[in-house]
Structure formats: structure tokens, C-alpha cells
């Protein structure tokens, strides 16, 4: 029974594909996967918008949206209708074609990226040998879309926002990629399916997820920080800092195109969260060995929602960084820590299994962390503020 529910979507798809002649089957299979991905993640986007607004509201001791439908749960629909029927304004001096293409170039690759995420047992639309590389390669096109949007709007704020966003994304892509390297080294494969398979076992009833090793925990934290910066979320949301450059690169977008930018941003967040789950949190595997009767896809989406909740929580807590702090953090803390983490996984790999590799590996990560943290704090020169005009 448990396996039936676990594999219900796989069997459903097999049955649907079987209805077509053999020549059509690959195409139908691909189309079904695409429809499922778009449907599921677009719905998740709607759920997340309301969760985020409600959650942020409660963090700030407000109610959040509570007018449309019971407790405001129909708010995403109202937002969607509003976005669709709004007038689409294109600036007169904008580069019309590039302005139009930018949201498309932003959203299309993000949907592509989902095809390598294992959302359940046997539920990976595209099992590539180089799955993680595919993820990052396709994800890298986002930068181009951001530039297109910022430049084509012919607005200095949008151009500044785009430049900031690209500088930030390129800077944080380095630690993002490097923090996945330990996992790839430990598994010995770039395939997302194999990475999840390597984490499915249990010790007693505790899972063998990578996040429960010293290098895995460090890698997970580094990955999540870099992912926050990659998807332009607070506290790294400088590209759209309202107080400085209004809305950043999508300032000149309105109506449905603006909604597409919003969608792209959230879909990118889900994608990196999904990859973090795949790499460090055991993908679709259950957290405790006696909970394996719950279907695998339920676990994946539960973990995804938990990650999103954590992102919302961080957004409600941490204030926005300054541009120089952002860059210093990327190059002076994230990059060295990611490199040290690669060293740590090598230590872990070549020490004999047993108690001693735990403190050794933890020490390799922890001591540089303390030193770098002190370095970052020490470089802060706090001087007494001098008022020039106010006596």
C-alpha cells in the first residue's frame, strides 16, 4: 500500500504514456513532465506569496492579508487577476524587443532547472549524468536576463540595479558552486539521483544525510547563504533596494511582465532550495527510519516548505546589507570557507571511519570560521560619530 501511494504519480504517468503509439511516447512523456512541473511549482508560488505575507506580518505583529476569502487565503488569486488585467506600460525610449524578451529569458530557464530535481523516488524528469552541472549552467542564464531587463528599460535606476544584481550573482556563484563540491566529492557523481541515493540509508533510526556531518553542515550553511544572495532575497536584496534604487532592474515593468519577474524570483528560490535538499538534506528520504511509510514526494515538498519558511524567517529578521559589506562577505568569508570545506571533506574521506574523524573534521572547519569571523569583526573600525553641522 505504501509503495502504491509512493509511486502513484509514476504509475499514472506510465499509464497515460501507454495510451499513445510508441513513436509518440517520448514526446508525451516529456510533455507530461513539463505540465506537472509548471502546475506544481506555479501553485507553490501562489502558496508561498500568501505564506510570506502572512508570516512577515506575524513577525512584525500584524495580521497580514486577511480580506480575500477566509483568512485571506484567496489573496494570491486576487493578486494574479490584478497583475493580468493591469496595463502593460513600456517606456518610450526602451529597447522594445529586449524589454519584452527579458522576463521570458528569466522564467523559461528556471522551469528547465526543475527537470533534474528528484522530487520523489523514481520521480526525476531528467536523470542526467551531469545533473548538478546542468542546474548551474541553466541557472547562469538568469544573469543575462537581469541585464537585459535593466539595460532595455533605459532607466538609470534599472541599469544600476542590474549592475548590482549581476555583480552580486557572479560573486556569490563562486561560493555556491564551491560549497557543492564536498558533496560531489563524497558521492563521486554529479547526478542528482545518485546523490540522493547515497543519503538514503539509516544508522539506527537516524538518517545518513550529509547535513549531519561537520563538512555537510558547514556546506549547507554556506550553500543556503549563497543561495539567498543568488535569488536576491533579503538580506541580500540590494538589487531592488527600495530606499536607494526604487525597484532595481524591474522598475520599468508593469502588469503581467512584473508578475513574471516575481514568479522567476520565487521559482529560482524554490529551485535552489530543492537543490539544497537534494545535496544536503537527503532529497526525498524520510528523516527517521520508522517514517518511511510516508510517500517520498510528501517528504520532498515538506522539506521544501520548511526551507521556504526558513527563508521567510530570515527575511523578517535580518536587515539589508550595504554593497561593500556584501562584496567583502562574499570574497573574504564565503570563498575561503568554501575552500576550507573542500579540505574538510578530504580529511573526512581519508581518515578511517570512527569517532576521531568527527572532531578532526569539525576542527578543520571550526577554527578557520572563528579566525575569519574575528577578522571580519576586527576590520570594522567603529569611531565616535562627529556631527559637522549640528552643534
Amino acid at each position: 500500500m505504501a509503495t502504491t501511494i509512493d509511486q502513484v504519480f509514476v504509475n499514472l504517468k506510465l499509464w497515460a504514456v501507454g495510451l499513445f503509439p510508441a513513436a509518440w511516447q517520448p514526446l508525451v512523456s516529456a510533455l507530461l513532465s513539463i505540465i506537472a512541473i509548471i502546475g506544481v511549482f506555479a501553485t507553490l508560488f501562489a502558496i508561498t506569496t500568501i505564506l510570506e505575507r502572512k508570516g512577515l506580518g506575524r513577525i512584525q505583529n500584524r495580521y497580514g492579508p486577511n480580506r480575500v476569502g477566509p483568512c485571506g487565503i484567496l489573496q494570491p488569486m486576487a493578486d494574479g487577476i490584478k497583475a493580468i488585467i493591469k496595463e502593460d506600460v513600456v517606456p518610450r525610449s526602451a529597447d522594445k524587443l529586449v524589454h519584452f524578451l527579458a522576463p521570458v529569458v528569466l522564467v523559461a530557464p528556471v522551469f528547465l532547472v526543475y527537470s533534474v530535481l528528484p522530487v520523489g523516488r523514481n520521480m526525476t524528469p531528467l536523470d542526467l549524468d551531469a545533473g548538478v552541472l546542468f542546474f548551474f549552467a541553466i541557472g547562469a542564464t538568469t544573469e543575462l536576463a537581469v541585464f537585459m531587463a535593466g539595460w532595455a528599460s533605459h532607466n538609470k535606476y534599472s541599469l544600476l540595479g542590474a549592475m548590482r544584481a549581476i555583480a552580486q550573482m557572479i560573486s556569490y556563484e563562486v561560493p555556491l558552486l564551491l560549497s557543492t563540491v564536498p558533496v560531489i566529492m563524497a558521492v563521486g557523481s554529479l547526478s542528482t539521483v545518485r546523490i540522493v541515493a547515497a543519503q538514503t540509508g539509516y544508522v539506527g533510526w537516524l538518517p545518513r544525510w550529509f547535513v549531519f556531518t561537520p563538512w555537510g553542515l558547514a556546506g549547507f550553511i554556506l550553500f543556503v547563504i549563497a543561495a539567498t544572495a543568488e535569488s536576491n532575497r533579503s538580506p541580500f536584496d540590494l538589487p531592488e533596494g527600495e530606499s536607494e534604487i526604487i525597484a532595481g532592474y524591474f522598475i520599468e515593468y508593469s502588469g503581467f511582465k512584473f508578475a513574471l519577474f516575481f514568479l522567476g524570483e520565487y521559482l529560482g528560490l524554490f529551485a535552489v532550495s530543492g537543490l539544497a535538499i537534494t545535496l544536503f538534506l537527503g532529497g526525498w528520504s524520510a528523516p527517521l527510519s520508522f517514517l518511511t511509510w510516508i510517500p517520498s514526494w510528501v517528504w520532498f515538498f515538506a522539506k521544501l516548505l520548511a526551507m521556504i519558511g526558513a527563508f521567510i524567517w530570515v527575511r523578517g529578521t535580518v536587515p539589508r546589507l550595504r554593497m561593500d559589506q556584501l562584496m567583502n562577505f562574499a570574497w573574504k568569508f564565503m570563498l575561503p570557507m568554501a575552500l576550507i570545506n573542500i579540505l574538510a571533506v578530504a580529511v573526512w574521506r581519508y581518515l578511517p571511519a570512527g569517532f576521531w574523524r568527527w572532531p578532526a573534521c569539525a576542527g578543520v572547519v571550526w577554527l578557520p570560521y572563528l579566525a575569519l569571523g574575528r577578522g571580519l569583526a576586527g576590520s570594522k573600525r567603529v569611531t565616535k560619530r562627529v556631527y559637522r553641522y549640528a552643534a
Partner: protein
Amino acid sequence: MLGEGILKGMVETARNFFGSYRSRERLVTVQYPEERLPMKENARNFPFLVYDGVDAEKGLRCVACKICEKECPPQCIYIILERDEKGKPQKHPKVFDIDLSVCMSCQICVEVCPFDAIKMDTEFELSCADRFGGLLVHKPQLAKSNEYYHQLHPADAEEVDARLAAEKAKAEAKAKAAVAPSTAKPPSVPRPTPAK
């Protein structure tokens, strides 16, 4: 240690999050259309005209002196004096319009009015479907009774009433004195306290 402050902050926001579900006092939001905060004593929004008695047209205190029209900084007041058949000016406005989309709620018209005829309203739900005509209000809509004014600003209204009554008494006494000059001085009237 790096990151300690962030963890502390996250604990604080988590406390806010769960606390807002447990105790209602934390929630600062007022659910506006159903639930309203009491208006402040000195709240003001846009001007209106005060009339005494029951008839809005007859009791209007305004004498169309046009001081407010001249003083109004954004010039949102428009007054036409009423004249009878012979062209003799009456102490009454024929037209009194205020363009609320122009008015900036400065209360200068109230300050300069020598007759306490124009006062500030607290009504703020003025939205209307007509973009141009809807916010141009005319005399019938502007005229509000003195009781209404008492409701809005009770303290101010008491003071204004006392002053007006005192002035009226003074004028009557003066008239009486003019009728009978042989009698002694008119009874001393307490000076009205100046408006704040």
C-alpha cells in the same frame, strides 16, 4: 562569534511570530472599516460651514465677506455674494464652493473668519467615482448644523458659543444704551477668552 547576533534576532522574531497568535494585545493593526480608533479632539480634514437653528439656508453664519477666499493659499474657495432684485448686497453667500481636491487642510480659513462661520470637519472617507465633479462640494453639502460641530469638537464649540453669546449680549446692551443714554454704564461683559 560571527552569526551570534543573527541567531538572537531570529529568536526574537520567532517570539513575535508565535506571540502574535497567542496574545491579541501584540497585534497593533486596527481592522479599519469595522474597528475604528476614536478621533482625536483636534483632528481636522476639510472645512465646512456652520449654521444655527434648523434651517441651513437661513441660519448660515457666513456673511460672504470673502476673507477666507482671499486668504486661502491654494485658492480652493469660491464665493458669490447674494444680491436682491435691486442689486443690493445681502449678507449671505449665493454660491459657496470648496474644491476638496485642491484644499490642503491648512485651517487658515478658520483662523481668519471673524464670524466663526467656517470650521474644520473630520470626515475623511470622501472617495467618489467622479474624478472631477465629485470633490467639488457646494453650499448645501458644506452646511452643517452647530450640533454637528459640537459633536466633532465639543470644547472648541462651547467656547465659540460662549463668545458669540457674549458678543450678542454686548451688542444688545449697547443698543439698549443707545436707546436710553441717561442710564448708567452698560453692565460690564466678561471679555471672551481668546481662541487658542
